[in-house]
């Protein structure tokens, strides 16, 4: 029994001694360091050692004198992440770790706006997503307010304020009623990023043609073709004229020139003429001599 107790106390004492050694060997490390800022690592003991700071974003190696504090000037560690610290002396190696966190000040925005071109008057047609980075291209995960602004020269400005979650924010905007080049801006403080979104006229609206006899032909001419918001549909947009006569059908595609399309077709008595552009149907004319 006495032997057992002695053995137990012996093991306990050895364990306590081991724990106190481990405690002595523990380095005094900062818990976190802001990317790019200065920091220091004190050490204990005597003699020379090599200090390693090892992470996925950076690796540092430095000779240090044990018992002194190793100073790292601003800019030494700039990549956010988890870093292992190894202090290798002649007799022992001490380990520790700390985190480098992104700088608080946003410096870069990764801003993706889609689409770059869309028709006017589309509800929720434009989206923007932004990731916020610091000066060292570390994602800033702390909630950060972002303002999105879509400005069209001839209409009101749409604004949205969003707070990032895990470094990301997004917004959905409507395309306005007026064609033109919009500026889509994402802004965090003084940092901003601009994308250009072209708003083009939508599908023709109220497509209408008139007919006029020219010799043996009927000339069909559209009114100026506009979308439902009154924007001129661009030249080059195809307009399809169709003649149905006696069971036969003739079709002609004509591009808009100066806002209108025109064509000459045979003037058959009783023929039916129709006009369309894309999926939009216009009026019909029945030709009677």
């Amino acid at each position, binding site marked *: 029994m006495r032997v057992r107790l002695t053995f137990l106390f012996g093991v306990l004492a050895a364990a306590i001694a081991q724990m106190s050694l481990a405690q002595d060997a523990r380095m005094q490390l900062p818990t976190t360091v802001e990317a790019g800022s200065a920091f220091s690592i004190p050490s204990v003991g005597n003699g020379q050692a090599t200090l390693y700071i090892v992470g*996925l*974003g950076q690796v540092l190696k430095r000779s240090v004198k044990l018992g002194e504090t190793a100073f790292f000037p601003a800019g030494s560690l700039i990549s*956010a992440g988890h870093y292992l610290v190894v202090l*290798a002396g002649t007799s022992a*190696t001490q380990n520790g770790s700390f985190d480098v966190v992104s700088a608080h000040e946003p410096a870069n925005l990764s801003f993706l706006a889609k689409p770059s071109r869309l028709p006017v008057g589309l509800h929720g047609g434009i989206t923007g997503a932004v990731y916020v980075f610091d000066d060292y*291209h570390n994602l800033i995960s702390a909630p950060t307010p972002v303002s999105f602004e879509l400005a069209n020269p001839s209409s009101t400005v749409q604004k949205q304020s969003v707070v990032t*979650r*895990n470094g*990301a924010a997004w917004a959905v905007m409507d395309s306005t009623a007026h064609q033109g080049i919009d500026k889509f801006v994402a802004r965090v403080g003084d940092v901003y990023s601009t994308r250009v979104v072209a708003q083009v006229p939508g599908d023709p609206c109220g497509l209408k043609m008139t007919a006029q006899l020219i010799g043996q032909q009927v000339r069909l001419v559209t009114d100026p073709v506009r979308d439902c918001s009154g924007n001129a549909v661009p030249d080059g947009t195809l307009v399809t004229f169709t003649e149905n006569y006696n069971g036969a059908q003739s079709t002609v595609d004509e591009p808009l020139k100066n806002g209108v399309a025109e064509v000459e077709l045979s003037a058959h008595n009783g023929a039916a003429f129709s006009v369309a552009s894309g999926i939009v149907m216009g009026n019909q004319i029945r030709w009677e001599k």
Partner: protein
Amino acid sequence: MLKSLLFLATFLAASSCVASAQASVRVEPTNLQGPRSLPEETGRAAIRDYLQSWQSLNAAFEQNRASLLDPAFVGIAKDKLTETIQQQAALGIRTHYTDRAHDIQIVFFSPEGLSIELLDTVNYDVEFIDNNGVKTTQHVSARFLIIVTPAELRWRVRVFQAEPE
């Protein structure tokens, strides 16, 4: 018969080695922000490709060969990891990263569909080896912010950043 048993034993031993080398993966229910819903298949592919990126990372850091990052990393993540590998090589250091467990959650699918953000609490071991003989291993638990973007055939990691849990 003996040959068959030997083969079976070898096979089981090999299987056990493979199993122990693979990290356990837990995928949390998606907690998505953004106007766009994430197709299940897309989410699975993004997670699969991200997990494979750990193998590329480990091989690249162990061999100090940044080119091994190419299939899995792109942009900021690739630039930073490449630079670190170059620093390791210059200092005569190698590191061996072994991921043991992942706890993954998809948190953002950007509206245009061109990026997915994941959070992953990773348990991993880092073995540190200096050519002059210093060698140590540490177990780490860290939360990673990951942004993956689509490439020709797979999702590639564009942002790969650990932060305090």
